[in-house]
C-alpha cells in the first residue's frame, strides 16, 4: 500500500512548479543596502564635509594648545596600562587554565566584568573609593593609621593621578588579554607541556620555554585588542584624567564638540580621523597576528591534562584572581552603593543616616534622570532587537544568496563599526544626520540609529556564530523539502539560532543601555540617556544621585548579563533535557 500522496499515474511530463518568489530575497537586499548606507554613509559625509576647509581644520588642530602633551599622554597611558594588562591577563589565564588555582566560575565571569560593571560606573566607583580626601579607602587607611598613632590628613591614595588612571585603565584592559590567551591555552594540547615536564623541566621553565611561546600570537593579539579598546575608552579618562589634568585623545575630541562654543566640529573630525587611523592600524595588526596564529598554535582536539599543583602558592594565586574581581567589580559597586544611600559623599560612612532619598529622586522625582533611564532601557530593548534580528537576516541572506568576495564584503561591513572608535562613529552621525536635511539633532531616532550601527558588530558576530552552529545541512534539507529561503529562515534557521541570538541580544542591550561615548555627543536635554546624564551629574557634583543612577544601571546590566549566561548554558542543554 503506497501511503504517500503520489498521483496514481505519473503525469506525462512532470512540470516544475514556478518558483514562489517570496519577499525575503528583496527584503534582505533592501536591509543590506540600508545597513551599508548607515555604516558607510555618515563617515563619508563627515570627511566630504570638511571639503576645502580641510587644510584650515588641520592647521587649527595642529595649533591646539597642549596637542603634543595630549598625544604623549595618550601613548603613555596606553603603553603602560596595556603592558600591565598583558602581564596580569596572561597570569590569570595560565592560573585558570593550567593550574589547580582554577575556579570554574571565575573563567566565566572574568571576561564579562566590563559588562557587569560598565567602565563609567567603575571609574566613578574608584573616584569614590580613592579620591584624596573623601575616598572610603583613604578614610579606612587613615583610621587604621590613627589607631597606631600616625596622623594623616589627606591621602594616602589619590586616584586622580597617573598611577590612579593607569590602574583603572589596566583593570578594564585585563579581560581582553585574558579572553584571547585563555582561549589559546584551551586549544593548546597539554601533552606539549607534559612532554616538557617528562623531559625534566620544572613548572617555571615549562611556562617560560613551552607554554608562553606557544601562545605568543594570542598574547600579542590580546595586547592589540586591549590597545584598540583602551584608545577608544572615554569614560575612565574623562572621570579620572580631567581632575588630574591628564587629557587623552578621546577626551579632547569630545570636549571640542560638546564643551566648546561654538563646537569646533572640523577640528574634532581631524582628531577623530587620527584616532580612527590609530585604531585601524592596531586592529589590522591584531587581525594579521591572529590569522598567523592559526597556523602557529593549531593542535587537534584539546585533551584535558592534569592541572599543575601549585602547593603553597595555590591560596595566594586564588587570592590574586579573587582580588582582581574585588577591585574591579565588588569594591567600586560597594562605593557607589554606600554613597547612594547617604545624604552626601564623605569618607566617614554614617550608618545612622542611611536613606533611599537619592533613589527616589533618580527614579521618580527628577525628570531628567527618570527620562534618561526610560530612554536608555527602551533604546536598549529596541536597538538590541533591531540589531540582532537584522544581523540574523543579513547573516543568513549572505550565506544563501551571496558567494565569494561579495559575501565577505557584506559580512565585513557589518563588523566595520568595531574598527572605528565609538567617538568617530558618533562624530560622523553628528556631522551627517544631526543637521539639515535630516535634522535629527536632539532626537531619540538619532541615538537609535547610532546605537544600532555602533553595536552591529557584536550582534553580527553572535548571529554568525549562531548560524554556524545551526549548520548548512539543516537549512539545505528545508530547501530540498520545498521551503523557499524566507520560509526556511522562519521555520528552521531562526528557531535554531535563538539561544545564540539571545546571548547576543543581552550583550547589545547592556552595551546600549550603558553607552556613554556616543551618548555624550548625541544626547541632550531633549533626548537624555543614562550615559549623558551620568556625566552631567558628575560635573555638577550631585554624588548621591549619581551613585544611585550608577547602581541602578550596574544592577540592570549585571542582571541581564547573568540571566543570559544562565539561559545560554541552559539553552545548550535544552535538547538533552528533552532527551532525558
Amino acid at each position, binding site marked *: 500500500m503506497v501511503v504517500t500522496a503520489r498521483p*496514481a499515474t505519473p503525469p506525462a511530463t512532470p512540470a516544475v512548479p514556478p518558483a514562489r518568489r517570496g519577499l525575503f530575497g528583496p527584503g534582505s537586499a533592501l536591509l543590506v543596502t540600508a545597513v551599508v548606507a548607515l555604516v558607510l554613509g555618515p563617515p563619508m559625509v563627515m570627511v566630504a564635509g570638511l571639503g576645502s576647509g580641510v587644510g584650515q581644520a588641520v592647521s587649527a588642530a595642529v595649533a591646539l594648545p597642549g596637542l603634543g602633551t595630549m598625544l604623549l599622554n595618550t601613548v603613555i597611558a596606553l603603553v603602560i596600562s596595556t603592558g600591565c594588562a598583558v602581564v596580569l591577563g596572561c597570569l590569570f589565564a595560565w592560573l585558570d587554565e593550567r593550574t589547580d588555582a582554577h575556579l570554574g566560575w571565575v573563567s566565566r565571569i572574568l571576561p564579562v566584568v566590563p559588562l557587569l560593571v560598565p567602565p563609567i560606573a567603575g571609574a566613578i566607583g574608584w573616584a569614590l573609593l580613592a579620591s584624596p580626601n573623601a575616598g572610603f579607602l583613604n578614610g579606612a587607611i587613615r583610621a587604621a593609621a590613627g589607631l597606631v598613632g600616625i596622623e594623616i590628613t589627606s591621602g594616602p591614595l589619590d586616584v586622580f593621578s597617573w598611577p590612579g588612571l593607569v590602574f583603572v585603565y589596566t583593570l578594564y584592559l585585563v579581560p581582553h588579554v585574558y579572553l584571547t590567551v585563555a582561549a589559546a591555552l584551551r586549544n593548546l594540547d597539554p601533552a606539549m607541556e607534559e612532554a616538557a615536564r617528562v623531559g625534566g623541566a620544572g613548572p617555571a621553565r615549562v611556562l617560560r620555554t613551552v607554554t608562553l611561546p606557544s601562545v605568543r600570537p594570542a598574547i600579542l593579539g590580546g595586547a592589540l585588542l586591549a590597545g584598540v579598546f583602551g584608545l577608544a575608552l572615554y569614560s575612565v579618562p574623562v572621570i579620572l584624567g580631567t581632575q588630574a589634568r591628564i587629557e587623552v585623545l578621546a577626551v579632547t575630541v569630545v570636549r571640542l564638540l560638546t564643551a566648546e562654543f561654538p563646537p569646533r566640529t572640523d577640528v574634532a573630525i581631524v582628531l577623530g580621523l587620527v584616532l580612527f587611523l590609530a585604531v585601524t592600524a592596531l586592529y589590522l595588526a591584531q587581525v594579521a597576528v591572529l590569522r598567523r596564529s592559526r597556523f602557529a598554535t593549531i593542535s587537534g582536539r584539546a585533551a584535558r591534562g592534569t592541572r599543575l599543583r601549585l602547593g603553597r602558592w595555590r591560596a595566594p594565586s586564588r587570592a590574586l584572581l579573587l582580588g582582581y574581581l574585588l577591585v574591579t567589580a565588588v569594591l567600586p559597586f560597594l562605593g557607589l552603593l554606600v554613597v547612594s544611600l547617604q545624604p552626601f559623599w564623605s569618607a566617614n560612612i554614617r550608618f545612622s543616616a542611611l536613606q533611599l532619598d537619592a533613589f527616589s529622586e533618580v527614579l521618580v522625582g527628577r525628570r531628567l534622570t527618570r527620562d534618561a533611564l526610560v530612554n536608555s532601557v527602551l533604546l536598549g530593548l529596541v536597538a538590541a532587537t533591531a540589531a540582532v534580528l537584522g544581523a540574523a537576516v543579513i547573516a543568513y541572506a549572505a550565506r544563501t544568496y551571496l558567494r565569494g568576495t561579495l559575501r565577505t564584503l557584506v559580512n565585513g561591513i557589518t563588523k566595520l563599526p568595531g574598527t572605528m572608535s565609538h567617538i568617530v562613529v558618533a562624530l560622523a552621525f553628528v556631522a551627517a544626520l544631526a543637521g539639515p536635511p535630516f535634522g535629527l539633532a536632539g532626537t531619540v531616532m538619532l541615538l537609535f540609529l547610532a546605537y544600532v550601527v555602533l553595536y552591529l558588530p557584536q550582534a553580527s558576530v553572535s548571529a554568525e556564530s549562531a548560524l554556524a552552529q545551526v549548520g548548512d545541512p539543516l537549512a539545505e534539507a528545508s530547501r*530540498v523539502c*520545498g521551503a523557499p529561503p524566507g520560509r526556511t529562515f522562519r521555520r528552521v534557521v531562526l528557531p535554531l539560532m535563538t539561544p545564540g541570538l539571545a546571548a547576543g541580544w543581552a550583550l547589545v542591550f547592556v552595551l546600549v543601555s550603558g553607552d556613554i561615548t556616543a551618548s555624550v555627543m548625541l544626547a541632550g536635554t531633549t533626548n537624555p540617556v543614562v550615559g549623558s546624564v551620568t556625566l552631567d551629574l558628575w560635573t555638577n557634583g550631585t554624588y548621591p544621585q549619581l551613585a544611585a543612577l550608577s547602581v541602578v544601571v550596574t544592577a540592570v546590566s549585571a542582571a541581564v548579563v547573568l540571566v543570559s549566561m544562565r539561559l545560554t548554558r541552559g539553552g545548550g542543554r535544552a535538547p538533552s533535557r528533552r532527551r532525558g
Partner: protein
Amino acid sequence: MTARAPARATAEHTGTDPGEPSTAEIVVRGVTKTFTRRGGADVPAVDDLDLDIGHGEFLVLLGPSGCGKTTLLRCLAGLETPSRGEITIGGRAVFRAGRGARVDVAPEARPVSMMFQSYALWPHMTALANVAYPLENRRGGRREARAAADRALALVGVPELAEQYPGQMSGGQQQRIALARALVAGQDVVLFDEPLSNVDAKVRDQLRFELLALQRRLGFTAVYVTHDQHEAMSLATRIAVLHAGRIEQLGTPEEIYNRPASGYVARFVGVSNELTGQALDPTTVQTDIGEVTARVPTALVGHPVLLASRPERWRIVTGTPDEPNTWPATVDLAVFVGSRSEYMLGVGDGTRLAVWDSGATSHTTGSRCRVTIDPADVRVLPVDEGADEGSSWS
C-alpha cells in the same frame, strides 16, 4: 498502486550520447563544477560529465572521497551551482549555463527530495512535524500533511516515534525519520547522500534492504552516493564509478565487478591482484612471474598492460597438473575469516597474490603449493597511474 516500469527495464539504458535528445528521468550534460582552492587555482570537482538516469532506476554514484560524487548529487538538488552544463529532471531543464538562456531553478522548486548524510532532522520539531514539513511546503493543508506524515512513519516502521524529538532517538531511528521525510511528498526523484554511513553494520544492512524494497514498491528514481562498494553492489541497478570528477565506468554491478574498465575501477570495487607486463600477442602477456595466458584486447597488443584478477578466482592446487597459468608459490600468510580462508602467497621473485578459498584453512604459513587461474578470469587493462601500488589486500 503506482504503475511504473520495472526497475530493471531501464538498466540497459546507457545513452550518454551528448548529441541525442534523451527521454531519461534525469539528464546531465557537460556539467562542470570548479572550486577555487585557497591560492586561486581552480579545481574541477565535477568535470564535463554526461549521465542519463532512467525512470525508476536505482543509480549509485560510487567513488572515494573527493571524486566528485557528492558535488554531482548536490548539483542535481540545486544546492551547488555548476560552473557550466545542463541538468534536466523529468523533462524540464532545472539548470543550464553556457548555451542558451541561463536557467537555475531553486532547490525548493525542483521535483526532487533528498536524504542527508547527517540526517539533517530539525531538532526543534517532532518526528511528525519533520515528516509533515515537505507536504506543508508543497501543498499546504496542515491536517492532511500530518495524516500523510503519519502514514509515512508507518511505512518506514516507526509509527510510535511521531511525537518524539530527534534528540531522543537512536541513530537508526533518526535515519528512518529522515527516510520518511524524503519519501513523504512522493517526489519522482529521491537523492541519497551516503545516508547509511553513520550507523553500525547490523542496522545498516537492515535499512539497506528496506530501502531497496521501498524503492521497488514506490517506483521512484533513486540517485545514491556512497563510497562503500558493498552497499553500491547490493542497491544499484547501475553503478557509476567516479574518478576525479568524471565517470570512469558506468554499468551493472556485475559488469563493474567482473569486467572493470580500468585498474582504478578494479582496485576500488573489490580486492584486485595486479601484475604489470608487456602484451606479446593476443593471448600472452610477459610479466615478472613469467608468461600469463589471457585475452588481450587487440588495441593493447605490443603495449605495456595491467593484469587484474579477483582473489576468489585463484585456486590453490596440489600435484603438478599441466594447466596454463600455474605457478609454484609460498604461503606467506594464512587467515581464516569465517566465510572463507584468505591467503597471501609469494610467487616468483617478490610478487604477492591475494587468494581466497571458500573452504577451511588447509595450508599453513610457510608451506609450499601451486596456484592457478583460468585465463578468462584475468582482465587485461591499460596501465594507469595507480598500477605501481601493487596488489591490495584487505
